[in-house]
């Protein structure tokens, strides 16, 4: 563990299902069992109708870049070693938008609308992070 590490998510009762799936390299979004509204990040109660009935929908892992920024300054451990890195918001095929990093291409080559697919970064045995890379 000499390499400085990104901050890891705190896994709690509302989000455990999501993070456990990501460790298996599966990406899920939630859908309300009552009103069918999809939501992200996961939470126990549907913000549209307050139902506790939840269905997990397996996402394809494909999406497009909704926006991005090439980060040149961040002195926090775990990030200063990666500068410059691409912070992005990706719109999944399932309709929700999530924050992530784009990897596998030069920062200068990133464009909004670019087709991307999930790439897994296994950080610890309990935590994997869904990153994205350009889709061929």
């Amino acid at each position, binding site marked *: 563990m000499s390499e400085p590490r990104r901050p890891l998510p705190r896994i709690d009762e509302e989000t455990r299902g999501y993070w456990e799936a990501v460790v298996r390299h599966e990406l899920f979004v939630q859908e309300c069992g009552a009103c069918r509204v999809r939501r992200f990040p996961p939470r126990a109660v549907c913000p*549209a109708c307050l139902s506790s009935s939840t269905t997990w929908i397996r996402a394809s892992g494909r999406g497009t870049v909704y926006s991005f920024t090439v980060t040149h300054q*961040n002195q926090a451990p775990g990030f200063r070693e990666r500068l410059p890195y691409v912070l992005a918001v990706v719109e999944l095929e399932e309709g929700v938008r999530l*924050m992530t990093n784009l990897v596998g291409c030069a920062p200068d080559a990133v464009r909004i609308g670019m087709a991307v697919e999930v790439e897994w970064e296994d950080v610890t045995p309990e935590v994997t992070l869904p990153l994205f890379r350009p889709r061929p």
Partner: protein
Amino acid sequence: MSIWGKVAVAGVYEHPRRYAPDKTAYQLHAESARGALADAGLEIGDVDGLFTSGVGPIGILSLAQHLNLRPDYLDSQAIGGSSFVSHCLHAAAAIEAGLCSVALVTYGSTAASERFAIGTGGGGVGDPADHFETPFGPTIVGAYALCAQRHMHEYGTTSEQLAEIAVTMRKHAMLNPHAKYRDPITVDDVLASRMISSPLHLLDCCMISDGGGALVLTSSERARDLRKPVAVILGGAEAVRHHGIGTRDLLDVAARQSGPLAMARAGVSHADIDLCMVYDSYTITVLLTLEALGFCGPGEGGAFCGGGRLALGGDLPTNTDGGGLSSNHPGMRGIFLVIEAVRQLRGERGAAQVDGAEIALVHGTGGMLGQRHSGVTLVLGKA
């Protein structure tokens, strides 16, 4: 029953220091409180309502103790940099409802002398959604950069257009002897400054300074008998935006809700506004805020903010003190927006005076645009 027009800002004070390693944040609060009360012609013993944010987890209690106040009304609304604009709105309601009669709003910060990385720091606030963001290295400037990149993509907005906003703020700062940065800059200077988080360059970003400020509010009726010309709260509203169910729209800004509501409450239209004071954490913040307030259509902000329109002498003079980009930004700038608006309505600004300023619009942004953020709009008028 309406509260609009019935409460006024009777005293203001902007601490002149931009770097104060010899002072504490509490001291800046206290010195600013002294200044604003003196400006109003009131005593500390007259204060029966206290409004503040940002001095620790139970900050308002700590501050009450520091100033030995025992107010009848406390409000530590904490919604980021817009908090102090919100305090004015809440104070107006409290005063008109009879919950207090003299409201003191204070702010103080030693962010610069503590070398606190604000914009390039993480920006996580410890809420559930953080855990789906902080592992990827978002910074505060990064959040605004995501908005700027999206606006450029949808509308063709350019870095040159954003840079012109920074140039205009600097021109205003050159007329402000207390401003931290007073050397002239050009669009090319902004574009040549180092990239912090694309497409935002160093000079697209507000500074980090120390600073403090305070406001005294009371009924318009009482304010008329005090020392200074009165600036009346004609209308106000606040709003919040966030990711909702996960379909975040980076260009949906809280000002879109609070702006029209505040203007309707004040009974004013865009043409009535003589100057704007909008939170300029970044150049893109000004553009997105003015768009959302309806001064121009969606996507038109780049062209709207150019051509000298936001400069003194232009159609919509904005941030006539030099803003957070050039005058001061101790972390939460909302109070300075109100202070400068009041000084303009009083006609106190000398070379930086907006001729015939009668109605000012103030808009504070708190949190991060494109993320969880607040927007508070106030319309202030000369009595």
